[in-house]
């Protein structure tokens, strides 16, 4: 924790930001810098690790310690950083290609092991840096340079994959909604363990407008719902709509209609360890419901880096030997005289 009060400027490096004008990455960068200020972490206690992609250029624009690694390996490298030095605040910056295509394995394992990383997944559903091929999150049928007749693959839903990999934290936001992004990021940082924050990001060059339905000012209030732990699930431009359970299915209701009051709505419980309802909420936009934004799941569990430290401490408590030579001498030996 910092004693000095840092500002956003303290988290900016003097490297020119090279994203395309209008790219959604800018807002995410700012939200990240603001989050760090809000969290009171210090630039020198912070490591920002990325793979390769437009999004993965982000560490260069931060004044913290940073490592722009190789494509897809951010999770693995960040795991090494965090296990080596658990006192660092470690952020992994990644794109949908970097994280879910080539980096998929390291990602699911970092999530499963619950390494205390803040994983910011900038999802533009396209490969930006290589100039426009489809990614594992590109919607089926989308025409790109590598799918001139449309893709034929069902995309991953990052929330679903995260939960499938035993994820204990998942949040979702949209580039244009900086306050929610910041809220997700700061909550993620406070969570011990792998915290995945998906930010829907607009690539103005190769997939412009694909998030419009949820990101456009005009439709956003109706098409999204921001979940907050302990709060009722309400949405709509007039905040008159809400979610309820109907058997094991969700339903959208209007407050005031059919005798439904706010009290009848579901209250979001992000810390419930059973991931059943989180799963449902995270996926509901596939079934015509609004898209869940905010922190959907936030469950405490021992983090991998803590467990590494704990186990070492435990063994050390039992075994007094601290030097190799003493260890060797304590084993099966004989003397030549």
């Amino acid at each position, binding site marked *: 924790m910092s004693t000095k009060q840092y500002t956003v400027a303290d988290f900016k490096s003097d490297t020119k930001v090279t994203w395309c004008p209008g790219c959604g990455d800018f807002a995410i960068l700012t939200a990240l810098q603001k989050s760090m200020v809000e969290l009171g972490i210090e630039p020198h206690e912070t490591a920002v690790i990325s793979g390769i992609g437009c999004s993965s250029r982000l560490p260069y624009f931060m004044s913290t310690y*940073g490592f722009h690694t*190789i494509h897809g*390996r951010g999770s693995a*490298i960040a795991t090494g950083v965090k296990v080596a030095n658990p006192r660092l605040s470690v952020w992994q910056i990644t794109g949908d290609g970097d994280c879910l295509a080539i980096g998929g394995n390291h990602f699911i394992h970092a999530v499963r092991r619950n390494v205390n990383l803040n994983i910011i997944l900038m999802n533009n559903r396209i490969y930006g840096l290589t100039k426009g091929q489809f990614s594992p999150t590109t919607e089926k049928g989308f025409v790109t340079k590598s799918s001139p007749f449309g893709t034929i693959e069902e995309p991953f839903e990052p929330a679903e994959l995260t939960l499938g990999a035993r994820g204990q934290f998942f949040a979702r936001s949209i580039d244009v909604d900086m306050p929610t992004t910041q809220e997700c990021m700061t909550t993620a940082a406070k969570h011990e363990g792998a915290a995945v924050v998906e930010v829907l990001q607009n690539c103005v060059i190769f997939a412009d407008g694909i998030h419009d339905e949820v990101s456009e000012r005009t439709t956003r209030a109706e098409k999204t719902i921001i979940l907050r732990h302990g709060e009722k699930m309400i949405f709509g431009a007039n905040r008159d709509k809400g979610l309820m359970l109907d058997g094991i299915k969700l339903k959208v209701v209007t407050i005031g209609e059919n005798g439904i009051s706010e009290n009848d709505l579901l209250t979001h419980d992000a810390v419930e360890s059973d991931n059943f309802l989180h799963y449902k909420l995270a996926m509901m936009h596939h079934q015509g419901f609004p898209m869940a934004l905010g922190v959907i799941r936030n469950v405490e569990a021992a983090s991998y880096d803590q467990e590494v430290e704990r186990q070492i401490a435990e063994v050390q408590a039992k075994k007094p*030997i601290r030097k*190799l030579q003493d260890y060797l001498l304590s084993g*099966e030996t004989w003397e030549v005289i």
Partner: protein
Amino acid sequence: MTVQHKVTELEQVVIRFSGDSGDGMQLVGNIFSNLSATLGNEISTFPDYPAEMRAPQGTLNGVSGFQVQVGKSVLTPGDRADVLVAMNPAALKTNAKSLHPRSIVIIDEDSFTDRDLKKADFLTDNPFEELKITQVQVVSCPITSLVKNSLVDSGFDGKTILRSKNMFALGLVCWLFNRPLDSAIPFLEKKFSKKPAVLAANVKVLNDGFNFGANTHASISTYRIESSNEQEKGIYCDVNGNSATAFGLIAAAERANLPLFLGSYPITPATDVLHELAKHKNLGVKAIQCEDEIAAVCSAIGASFAGHLAATSTSGPGLALKGEAIGLAVMTEIPLVVVDVQRGGPSTGLPTKTEQSDLLQALYGRNGDSPAVVVAAKSPLDCFDMAFNAAKIALEHMTPVILLTDGFIANGSSAWKIPNIDAMPAIKPPFVTEEIKEGWKAYQRNEETLVRSWAKPGIPGFEHRIGGLEKHYTTSAISMDAANHQKMTNTRYNKIAKVALDIPLLEIEGDENAELLVVGWGGTFGHLHSAVNQLLDEGKSVAYTHFQYINPLPSNTAEVLKKYKKILVCELNTGQFAGYLRGVIPGVNILQYNKVEGQPFMLSELVDCFTKTMEA
């Protein structure tokens, strides 16, 4: 009770214990080796596990062997066995080819029934004739029934009783080599310290074996093995190459005053490095099993970035997977030790067999001009030193170092004088200091060594960004500038070349003025050195040199090689080091002796080949 009729003195002797996987041959092999060492012998061991999952009892696939050479000037486990313990027909068959014609073969005659012979695919009931090893001296002994009888009152069940058969064999071998049982008992006491009843039973059987020899085989000559006169005073333990590698890394971490991190993924024959390091949590070692080899090297790179001594261990196919990430370490000039325990290739190849065929992969298996340091250990014990040296170079020169060992030295063991680790050289990574903070840049370099300084995350004022893109010569900012790329390429190259200043010069053994220089590298040292020595003993003129440092080469390499008319590079591959030497040291006459059988060299074939080469 040892009434010795004939006692022959031997300089060295090769003993092979062989039986079913469940017969405990590794254990008695180890005990015999270690007790021999306590008696002043040098030892070199080589275990020979079955490659397969546990095959059915008594079958050829299930045979587990342990070979040890004991004596003076022992550098290899030996070509062929002088004494074979064969607990069943499968063991006999598996080892028939590696017996001296007049060796002694100890068998458990109870396990040579028709059924047992059939399990081992014998067609007749005379296995010795079938295998054409009729000249051997057979010591046939009903081990199973004697052990059963001996322990009939022990209270143990049949299965447990039979587990002591190996001790009978050990006792018999002790008798054969005039080893007092007192020297064996401390090892049993340690092993069974928590099970006194088992200990007692084993000691009893051990005595039985010894007495059986003394009483019934008085006609056979027994042997006395010469002690080494070269053994330094000190406290010793037995260590194999993989453990030695692990210990070398721990020692380096201590001398660098850094925590040790290992990122690894299991793969034969390298897994024991992970196993060994995973044990030492009390020494603060963080040994992480990752989801794959790429994650293993990457987590190590991350740990290195964070300021640990970081290593990753693997074998050939794993090294192939790590190439891209090693390139990142080259580009970001981050210290990293990559241990590659070579095995038979290509592809999955012969996972349990030894080979030296990853050399060129280690040198070149990355995109771009991507120079890294490559070193190779020459023996099980040398794994300790070379792992230490690899870490020292990595940390002090800010570079990945690939350490090549191989299945042969990784699994082989010797007696090791436990070193005084505090007296080993200190390792001094180029960490940033407060004084240089002002205007510091991530890639500013020591002008002499070309090494950049190292700022661990966590220190205020040294925040910086690095990455795999080409970067500006000092600032580390991304740079696509043409001249800068040339400069950086040259710098990366020269930085590694300058490591040569920190490594020992090449030395010549034998006759400096010979026509023929035999050249080896890595784990073949024991065989090559012994073969050359044998020729020297015979009065032949031959010289030998051995490479532990491959890139960069010792700085006198060209000078040394140019003195010889014929240079014979011997290696367990199709000629990788030979080709490399030709490429970097033009104008010398390089001949090759290569063997790619998954097996170490044999002394005899080397002596043959050198003789022919001298005569040619």
